[in-house]
């Protein structure tokens, strides 16, 4: 086996891991947006999920409880957003920004006692035979459970949205909330549930970062991944399958940047660190330039305030 091929396995494995938080957060936000709500607070929910997950895992010694706590914390933040935008009819863009700003501060406050504390890595899967396969074994059969959970969430979300009655109703609410309301569907309740789901997924994404990917707590650990997840939803034109594609693409860019640094190619590391953000801008441009496609796929009520009397 050549040296390049031997490198491919770890790169593939690292790419899948790097794609996992994006996958969680973007799938959650996709469901939220499908219900007609734009929650720009993904970054904030992710950070609070990361710090709460980490804190609980350190206190209890259980990473499973950590993930649950991360999801719960993300959902709690999302509930705040839901109360403001759905019950008090606040502007969704402004409230989402507020959620992120609040989350950055809150996570730093909660996490101040947890900086620099080491935590045991989450054990990876081992299937005798399969995990030992050359090149792809470790990447496909040697990851930890969260990676597979994120992958499984892709068909699950797709199935829910396009093959169940509840998914159909959720999409109807997102396309035309007035018509859905007239048909007797509880617009606010459905949206609130979608927002909670999105928050839990963002919280999981954060907990994956602090418990597994890094694994440690540092202020601003998500480093803009919440915003990249938001861009991924647009990139995917609100289709779950394409979120997977986008997440892998970004996982690839993140890893490529690290490996270029590792190979000693003479580009300053700070400039390489720009790559994921620049890539986000570029794919956003490529997708958005097709105005008709965006208009066709974006939920028609996205970001609009709903009040039954108005």
């Amino acid at each position, binding site marked *: 086996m050549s040296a390049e091929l031997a490198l491919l396995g770890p790169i593939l494995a690292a790419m899948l891991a790097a794609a996992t938080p994006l996958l969680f957060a973007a799938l959650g936000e996709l469901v939220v947006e499908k219900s007609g709500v734009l929650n720009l607070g993904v970054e904030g929910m992710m950070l609070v999920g990361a710090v709460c997950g980490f804190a609980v895992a350190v206190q209890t010694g259980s990473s499973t409880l950590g993930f649950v706590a991360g999801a719960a914390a993300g959902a709690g933040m999302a509930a705040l957003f839901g109360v403001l935008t759905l019950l008090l009819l*606040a502007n969704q863009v402004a409230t989402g*920004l*507020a959620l992120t700003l609040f989350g950055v501060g*809150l996570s730093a406050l909660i996490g101040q006692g947890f900086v620099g504390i080491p935590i045991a890595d989450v054990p990876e899967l081992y299937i005798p035979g399969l995990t030992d396969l050359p090149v792809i074994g470790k990447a496909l059969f040697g990851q930890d459970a969260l990676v597979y959970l994120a992958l499984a969430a892709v068909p699950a979300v797709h199935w829910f949205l396009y093959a169940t009655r509840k998914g159909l109703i959720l999409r109807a609410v997102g396309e035309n909330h007035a018509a859905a309301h007239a048909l007797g569907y509880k617009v606010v309740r459905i949206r609130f549930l979608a927002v909670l789901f999105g928050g839990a997924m963002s919280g999981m994404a954060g907990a994956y970062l602090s418990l597994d990917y890094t694994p440690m707590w540092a202020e601003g650990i998500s480093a803009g991944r919440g915003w990249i997840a938001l861009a991924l939803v647009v990139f995917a034109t609100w289709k779950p399958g394409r979120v997977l594609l986008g997440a892998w693409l970004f996982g690839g860019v993140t890893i490529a940047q690290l490996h270029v640094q590792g190979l000693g190619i003479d580009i300053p590391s*700070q400039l390489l*660190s720009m790559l994921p*953000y620049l890539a986000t801008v570029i794919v*956003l441009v490529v997708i*958005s330039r097709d105005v008709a496609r965006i208009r066709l796929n974006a939920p028609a009520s996205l970001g609009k305030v709903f009040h039954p009397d*108005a």
Partner: protein
Amino acid sequence: MTLLRLEPRGEASRAMVYATPLLAVALTLASGFLLFWAMGFDPVKALHAFFIAPLMSLRGLGELAVKATPLVLCAIGLAIGFRANVWNIGAEGQLTLGAIAGGGLALAFYGEGGWWLLPLMIVAGMAGGALWAAIPAFLRVRFNASEILTSLMLNYVALHLLNYLMHGPYRDPDGFAFPESRLFEADAVLPLLVAGTRVHLGSLFALLAVAAGWFLMARTFIGFQIKVIGLTPTAAGYAGFNQKKIIWLTLLLSGALAGLAGLGEVAGPIGQMNPTISPGYGYTAIIVAFLGRLHPVGILLAGFLMALSFIGGEAAQIALGLPKAITGVFQGMLLFFLLATDVLIRYRVRFGAKQVVGRAAA
């Protein structure tokens, strides 16, 4: 659900427009009281250290103006954009680029400056910020890409660019390995306005920006177009207003002001280039813009309040050992409460079940 009900007012309440920011501040203070108490601090002492003690000296008041300066400069520009539904959240990056461009000149002409250097730096700072904002403007107008996401992504790019420069070209040649530049020479530093404080010429620029922002929005046709586009884009389309022009204008303007803010920091209180120019002024300015009701005079007041949250956070950290992160929590809470209470502007809260009466649609 029928216990509490929102009933549309026929017309937005003017009184509530002014009352809700005060209500939000009061609710934030009340929550702060509870938060400090829950964290095991004496809440009265903590709130005093946070919000009152810093204002008890001339130096403290000066620091308030120093911190309010970049916030007001950024927020004036952002608010004009927000009015037109142009969501520039890249003020942090534009501020950084202003510092990079203006500060770069100070370093390039180190030892060979003159009276012309400072004006040139100011122009360069504004141009740097405007150029950085021109990227999301171009991508939005030409390719329909969301300026929210592109401007935000560019914040991270700007930060990495600054980091690169501080570890490379901008680093002090005699400063060993520290990522800091030389101290700017006297002809590259903004003059102080008040003896005994650090209040610099930038504060005057901020006041000018407040006046100019008010004039633009209240007295010019462009300001009128901005407001119409923000309120009813379709009407603006029928009236033949050029939306693309407004996107360009609002982004370039807010970028230039943010760039000026960044230049004001490095040529003002900091006096050199370093990797941590801003403690998040560009993000806090978003809160300032909303808290100030997107109105220049309101922004001036809100800028001082938010500046207080920065210096109060530092003072409370020193006096009581409160964690610095509490500043961000306060800022986020304030915006939450403001957005929550804003419902009172257009709706009345009613208790009990709905009464069937005829009324005009809101």
